[in-house]
């Protein structure tokens, strides 16, 4: 099991030695169960760090901010940023490395292993506790979590409250790291696409009905885009000013830029947004499931990415986020790629 004190010790050491600028980790929040992303700048602050099954966030997202901030600084601090990553998060890092969005030297990776479990789905936990307010959740030996409520501690089987993504996880311990905490466990998952197949197996009409209902709910808050570590483009087709305008951009360029989708949150425009999002993540999404977690309307967005992940595996034997040296899915090909669908 990951020992929190070890984590703090590692963090403290690198901060004291000045090896890192600061550390992005999980920090206890004043408001109970769920932690918040923490930015630890001094050795004294490492006491704020925590590691619990509620550490859901994929903190690699904050490397995007860090990179932008750094690019604005005249004399940037060139030291790496310390980053706490779970297995899935580390795969996101691999993709960012593969795309050369970041350099390996930019980040000091503190890997934490989820071992046999993973992180919770807060909604599942609330349901499970039937109104009792969880104050704390901890890893336990084996496949259990210990939850503290006002009425005391209860033991819950992890599988009952784990996030869907964790039930289908391909990397429960980090695939890349500078230090690793916890066991390098590899839990075997029978079928990482099990949940997806429920939808795949529906007839076409039902699939359409499902997605029509789901995507019509979207209010385009763009939280799914904002939380995704791969959504780092400066310009996004979804924005009204859909490219990085500078003082040098001519009026013609601005005027001629195509509005690919309208701001109205109606079915057709929501489909363009979500499908483009999914396709842009093909071969890049590592199924951290954050997009789905943050959706206020509970749209199962993850399935769109999952579908592409499955197809990439089936058609091209491609898996994202394990090898920073592999070429990206859509900028590579093999002679034997299937073409039975082509006329």
């Amino acid at each position: 099991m990951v020992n929190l004190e070890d984590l703090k010790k590692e963090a403290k050491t690198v901060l004291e030695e000045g090896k890192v600028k600061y550390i992005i980790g999980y920090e206890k929040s004043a408001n109970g169960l769920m932690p918040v992303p923490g930015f630890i700048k001094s050795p004294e602050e490492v006491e704020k760090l925590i590691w619990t099954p509620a550490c859901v966030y994929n903190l690699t997202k904050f490397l995007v901010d860090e990179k932008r901030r750094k690019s604005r600084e005249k004399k940037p601090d060139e030291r790496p940023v310390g980053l706490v990553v779970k297995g899935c998060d580390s795969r996101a890092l691999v993709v960012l490395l593969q795309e050369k969005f970041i350099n390996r030297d930019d980040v000091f990776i503190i890997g934490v292993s989820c071992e046999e479990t993973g992180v919770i789905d807060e909604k599942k936990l609330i349901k499970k506790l039937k109104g009792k307010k969880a104050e704390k959740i901890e890893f336990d030996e084996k496949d259990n979590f210990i939850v503290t409520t006002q009425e005391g501690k209860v033991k819950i089987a992890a599988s009952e409250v784990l996030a869907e993504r964790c039930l289908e996880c391909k990397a429960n311990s980090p695939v890349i790291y500078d230090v690793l905490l916890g066991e390098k466990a590899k839990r075997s998952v029978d079928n990482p696409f099990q949940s997806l197949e429920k939808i795949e197996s529906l007839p076409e009409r039902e699939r359409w009905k499902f997605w029509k209902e789901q995507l019509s709910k979207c209010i385009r808050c763009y939280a799914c885009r904002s939380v995704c570590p791969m959504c780092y483009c400066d310009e996004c087709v979804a924005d009204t000013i859909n490219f990085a305008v500078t003082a040098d951009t001519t009026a013609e360029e601005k005027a001629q830029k195509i509005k690919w989708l309208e701001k109205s949150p109606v079915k057709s425009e929501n489909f363009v947004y979500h499908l483009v999002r999914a396709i842009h993540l093909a071969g890049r999404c590592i199924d951290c499931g954050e997009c789905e977690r943050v959706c206020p309307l509970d749209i199962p967005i993850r399935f769109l990415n999952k579908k592409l992940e499955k197809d990439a595996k089936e058609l091209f034997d491609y898996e994202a986020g394990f090898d920073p040296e592999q070429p990206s899915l859509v900028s590579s090909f093999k002679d034997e790629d299937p073409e039975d669908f082509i006329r």
Partner: protein
Amino acid sequence: MAEEFEPKIVAFLCKWCSSAGSDLAGVSRMEYPPNVVPIQVMCSGSVSPLYVLSAFNKGADGVLVSGCHPGDCHYIKGNFYARRRIALVKRLLDFIGLEPQRFQMSWVSAAEGTKYTQIIKDFVQELKPLGPQTKLRRDL
């Protein structure tokens, strides 16, 4: 009686092969249905999935992406990239419940005027029973 439904097909044709193939069909006076809105692109590999989605969004009943045969790409390997990308888009559109017949890809060389006309004929025939594409069409 209502007029028979005439599907509108947006065809992204690569400049070097498929577009030339369609020109050949034209200059050879081969007959084929007038349902196509051809859009010449430099290479099938330059067709962004966004173009495809946008075509459906703006009312296409069917979308065709057509490029050179493998090995014939003017840019050596553009059509191989296209093959991968289109395969993924095709599966995704199928997954959300769009009729799979509505999105097609073909290899048509500059010499294959006949093949081009046949592809369009078949496409139109397949689209007719489906009726207008309303699923992804703009509903502002």
